[in-house]
């Protein structure tokens, strides 16, 4: 009898963990993208500050309410501004931030190409 109860408890525990595993992953992902506003360069995932703990509770509540990741980010951005998210939305103020690495990459490629071509021509001459 005791064995059966333990087995049932074990099964229930695993079912519970399986059901909430997805939520836990989502929570972790959101925590990592939220800036701890009272810390030095830490996400709320890394921080144990009071503010980070409270924010974690609110994120858990929102996930339980069935809110999507984007809805949670939108809610917090509305309350704290874009600074709270590590990955801000693309807009006219930050377009350079998004495109500059690609531009530098392309420009670097062009420079290397021109230099190689020039060296080749010099070699031929």
């Amino acid at each position, binding site marked *: 009898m005791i064995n059966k109860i333990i087995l049932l408890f074990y099964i229930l525990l695993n079912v519970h963990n399986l059901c909430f595993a997805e939520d836990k992953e989502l929570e972790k992902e959101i925590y990592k993208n939220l800036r701890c*506003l*009272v810390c030095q360069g830490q996400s709320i995932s890394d921080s144990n500050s009071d*503010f980070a703990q*409270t924010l974690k509770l609110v994120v858990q509540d929102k996930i339980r309410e069935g809110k999507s990741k984007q809805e949670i980010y939108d809610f917090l951005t509305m*309350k*704290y501004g874009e600074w709270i998210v590590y990955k801000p939305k693309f807009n006219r103020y930050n377009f350079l931030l998004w495109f500059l690495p690609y531009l530098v990459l392309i420009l670097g490629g062009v*420079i290397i190409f021109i230099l190689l071509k020039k060296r080749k021509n010099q070699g031929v001459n």
Partner: protein
Amino acid sequence: MKINFFRALVFLIAIFILSVFLFSLNKVKIYDTQNLVGQSIGSFELKSVNGKEIINEKILKKNQYTLINFWASWCAPCRAEHKYLMKIKKNSKNLKILGINFKDKEKDAKKFIEEFGNPYYFLAKDYEGRSSINFGIYGIPESILIDKNLKIIKKFIGPINHEDFNNILKLTK
């Protein structure tokens, strides 16, 4: 005169990087939530400290102005601003103060009020701090001045001082 393309490019990049540093380093950017001014506080629901009443946005709509003050008995700057809250209560006719006791204990909160006086018309509790996020709070003390349409007129981050006191009286005349 033939301009060397690469030298010109390097020069332009150097100028660009220097300009970015010059503009960024001269810009003082201390984070605050002043961007909320002009927005509505939206709906909320809090229990009073004695747990008997519910305080929500509908109650605040009845006031001409409301000052929402987040405080706690363990918060030293809250003690410093308390005398100004008492003065506001005494001098402002159109303003009522909603105190939100933040991450505190009921016993300690009551002791604090008994010791320093009660400036609050409504006294709510937020012992887990969940509601503070809804108000865009990231530290206490913080106060939000709203009108009867629940629109945020001003945010006071940190303890209210003499200048803020005069400002609040002027804004709520």
